């Protein structure tokens, strides 16, 4: 059974991992998708539904942690326009 504390910790872990993506678009997407995902499931009260969502989030975190290693090994050669302070 996933407690409130566990859910919050999962959200934080996802955000923390997502921040490390070297690619601008994927970094931003991970952040937005994580926040929206938790927001969408905020109203869940049925414990089995909560567990289901928690398990899914956990699986997503595993994916992020796995691919993050590869993405970090191959950082982009140049930064995205959006990351540069233009004139």
């Amino acid at each position: 059974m996933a407690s409130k504390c566990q859910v919050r910790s999962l959200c934080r872990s996802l955000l923390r991992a997502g921040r490390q993506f070297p690619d601008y678009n994927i970094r931003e997407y991970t952040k937005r998708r994580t926040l929206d995902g938790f927001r969408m499931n905020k109203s869940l009260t049925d414990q089995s539904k909560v567990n289901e969502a928690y398990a899914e989030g956990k699986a997503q975190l595993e994916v992020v942690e796995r691919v993050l290693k590869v993405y970090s090994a191959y950082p982009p050669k140049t930064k995205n326009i959006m990351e540069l302070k233009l004139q």
Partner: protein
Amino acid sequence: MASKVIYSTIRRTLTKPHGAVSRRHHLSTAAAATTTATAVDNYNDKSGIVMKGVRISGRPLYLDMQSTTPLDPRVFDAINASSIYDYGNPHSRTHLYGWEAENAVEVARNQVAKLIGASPKEIVFLSGATEANNTAVKGVMHFYKEKKKHVITTQTEHKCVLDSCRHLEQEGFEVTYLPVKTDGLVDVEMLREAIRPDTGLVSVMAVNNEIGVVQPMEEIGRICKEHKIPFHTDAAQAIGKIPVDVEKWNVSLMSMSGHKIYGPKGVGALYVRRRPRIRLEPLMNGGGQERGLRSGTLSTQQVVGFGVACELAMKEMEYDEQWIKRLQERLLNGVREKLDGVVVNGSMENRYVGNLNLSFAYVEGESLLMGLKEVAVSSGSACTSASLEPSYVLRALGVDEDMAHTSIRFGIGRFTTEEEIDKAIELTVKQVEKLREMSPLYEMVKEGIDIKNIQWSQH
């Protein structure tokens, strides 16, 4: 004609100083890059990237999602996992390696089938939507060539369908290219009238790649069913973006592509209906894989990636659409707020939200694209982006030559951010204003002269 002359002078005055400046700056690195032809040298410059003689300060923001999409990290993860152990030939029946690879392929087949409401047995994997379209159009007509001699398609189809049709014409088949209305939609009544007793195939694409209009698929499907004619659709731009159901649309054949839905490139699928059975002559002959319709060993990893991309697309469709719709509105409103003479090409009501094809009056399209180096956009499809000719799709819509020349296709996708849209608006507006300032045409319009009534002298 005369307007072209003016445009070309603008272009000349525009590119000259720009080219001169950049050439002086990157002489050393650019020269090295062209002689040794190593990609790495292009990035050694401290102040940005120099490629094809163009200096860009960073990676441009990507707004060309109709040409292709980036790989989703979740798809990447699935491909990675499959790359390590699923190396057996999925068609090997004698050992575990083959069985495992086959299982992986069958899982993907299920995922693809589920997205479009089909049975997994009706999915044929191949190299992409171009191969799927070729197989469908040529394959059906070749198989039924004794009785059926006529194909109906539209003028706004993708090049691979049009070219397949042209190929058929050379073989003696007849093709009707249906015109479209000014909003890009097919006139269903016209389609009904074009049907002949020897019509063997109707091919209409679901979502247009250049203008993003969604054709009335259900209606077309109904007409084809009434006349018992196979209906093929190119749904490369549609699957995973709008709800697709092969039963509702009543399609007999449907082309799909992996790289338009954040999957890998080089993989696609053709849906081939089993009941009523539609038969085709394969393009590839050989080992008889994929029900004999596409011989050749399947690329297990790409197929796996395509499958996962389909599953993701199904799960994320609603969420993505809401986001993309918001960005599309933001982009359109932002540009319209600051610029006049902006026209949306194609129907706004029947349109996939991730596509915004805009024409900017009194601006030359090529100069606009050249000036928008920080935004990765295109004037139309990637296949024809090398030519200076205006898009044949826009011409089929009856868009004026000058407006067709200035079209830009903005493609918004899953990974596009709000800040990118704001930046794109800023850069586009800046560039359009700059070009208009130089444009004698725009000056005349502002003075109240109707350009259409001017009698240009002939050269």
